[in-house]
């Protein structure tokens, strides 16, 4: 099965471009407008974070945004309800911790996503060995599950991870949690190169890709980037307009670079 997310990203790559996937914390004030701004400024897809009480893969910025969203009374049902009315013309993925999926039940969660028009799911605390049941339910509902490849993965693990991945392979940019860094970690391009060797699926680098320059640097090896904390910080500081301006800047940098 090749789903909508993989189809859209592959088309961008086939045309010689690089993929840009911003992350927006669902339920945070202004999040719907922020997604519209991303789409209007050339994002290929948007990753919507479903806030969780214990986000162990996230650094201070996304933790704070999640906590504010939860304190504002959001929940994943409300977020999906709003997503349903979002007609932005690009595929949407959710990023959520596994207890959200497990508590709802695999089949129900997958069908809730599908009903809201979501294309894919990223579950960062669900590693390969534990992912079988969820992935089966997701496939049955037409949801692509993006798998994460980690810098610590030995060579014999990567082929199994990419084999299960749908949509794209999320190549983790560094050892650590989400957040902005002053420079791109060497592991970002090293791992992306290792992953590219074992798959033809789109390979995007995320975690620690913090500005337009780093997005270009990562994309020299990878097919594109996911940008989280640097986008969410702009949402928190300047709202949807600031997000739009930033996505525009990164899009231009990716489009004008020589590959």
């Amino acid at each position, binding site marked *: 099965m090749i789903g909508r997310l993989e189809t859209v990203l592959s088309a961008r790559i086939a045309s010689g471009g690089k993929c840009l996937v911003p992350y927006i914390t669902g339920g945070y004030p202004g999040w719907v407008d922020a997604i519209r701004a991303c789409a209007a400024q050339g994002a290929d897809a948007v990753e919507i974070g479903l806030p969780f009480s*214990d986000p162990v893969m996230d650094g201070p910025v996304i933790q704070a945004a999640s906590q504010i969203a939860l304190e504002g009374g959001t929940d994943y*049902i409300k977020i999906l309800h709003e997503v349903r009315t979002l007609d932005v013309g690009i595929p949407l993925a959710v990023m959520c911790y596994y207890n959200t999926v497990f508590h709802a039940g695999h089949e129900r969660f997958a069908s809730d996503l599908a009903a809201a028009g979501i294309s894919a799911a990223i579950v960062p605390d669900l590693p390969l060995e*534990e992912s079988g049941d969820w992935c089966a339910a997701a496939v049955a509902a037409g949801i692509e599950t993006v798998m994460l490849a980690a810098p*610590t993965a030995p060579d014999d693990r990567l082929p199994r991870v990419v084999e299960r991945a749908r949509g794209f392979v999320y190549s983790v940019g560094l050892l650590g949690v989400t957040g902005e860094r002053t420079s791109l970690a060497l592991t970002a391009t090293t791992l992306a190169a290792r992953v590219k060797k074992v798959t033809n699926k789109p390979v995007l680098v995320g975690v620690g890709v913090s500005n337009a320059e780093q997005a270009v640097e990562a994309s020299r090896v990878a097919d594109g980037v996911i940008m989280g904390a640097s986008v969410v910080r702009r949402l928190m500081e300047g709202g949807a307009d600031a997000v739009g301006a930033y996505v525009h800047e990164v899009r231009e940098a990716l489009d004008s670079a020589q590959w």
Partner: protein
Amino acid sequence: MVTPGSDGRFGDFGGRFVPETLVPACQELEAAFQDAWADPMFRSDLSDLLREYAGRPSIITECHNLSEQLGIRLILKREDLNHTGSHKINNVLGQTLLAKRMGKKRIVAETGAGQHGVASATAAALLGLECKVYMGAVDVARQELNVFRMRLLGSDVEAVTSGSQTLKDAVNEAMRDWVATVESTHYCLGSVMGPHPYPYMVRQFHRVIGDEAFEQTNELLGTSPDVVVACVGGGSNAMGIFSGFVDTPARLIGVEPAGGAAVTRGQPGVVHGMKSYLMQDEYGQVAEAHSISAGLDYPGVGPEHSYLASIGRAEYPTVNDDEVVAAFQLMSRSEGIIPALECAHALAWIVREAPSMKGKTVLMNLSGRGDKDVGQMMSILGGLQ
């Protein structure tokens, strides 16, 4: 006892729900533990440390005064007499020896009441490891003596200000540290929880409590006790003592605080790397626990406890803070033993249920001493004229 396979399962519970980055580290730890546990040299090094440094075996004490008052025969397993004042040292000596064997230079640990943090800081000082302890800011405030102890021992203590600022948030922050430092650092997890192999490994390091108590009670009573009682937060002291009696007819009782009752009030969920009973809301957001005792202020429970509960082998009743405060004073006055607030939960249940256990032999794990809690109790009780 269940020995989990490579999937880390105790029945439906357990597993390894961690980010991909940590999977190789968990696999490496699992292999290193199995290798070490099967190695007579490692076992002998560990028992030497337990004997000559921690002061094992810990004794059992028959509580004649309380027994008479309650109409039962009450025996305490005295983990409070270990070096650093609680059972936590058993696991920490095991894990730090293992960390050294794996070539790690640094450990990180989470702590609630500070007992695991102090034990980790102690072992790190002894074995020459760098140590960083994460502790919720609420717990830093109510356990300031333990914070100072850890710093005195040369460890770095960081107050965690995210979420509920208690034990669960300290675990989150320790895991975030480990994700970033996994190549040089061992996560010295303090309870029978977390991703495989932790629940199994930590139980094995604590089963010395149950193995000793089995021998000691059989010598004293000529048989095993009728009831074995321990408090449960994550559940390590309880798993330790249950290990010695799970194959006997003894009733096994794990007492949870009413405000942190994962088994009674929780549903199966996944957090901190494991599938287990978890207090959560209708959308799977993890609930904040509320207990007078920082060490039990945890919304989850170790997966083997969930398993023992699910098959009906162990029971997990709850007690409230008022019962705990009363039990804390009762043991102090009746036996001259000031218990940790955590263990006062176990006694509170025994006091409440004693009328239905007349003449029974009851073994309680006194997993820690109460020195750390006297400041907090002073503010609750006033001057005690």
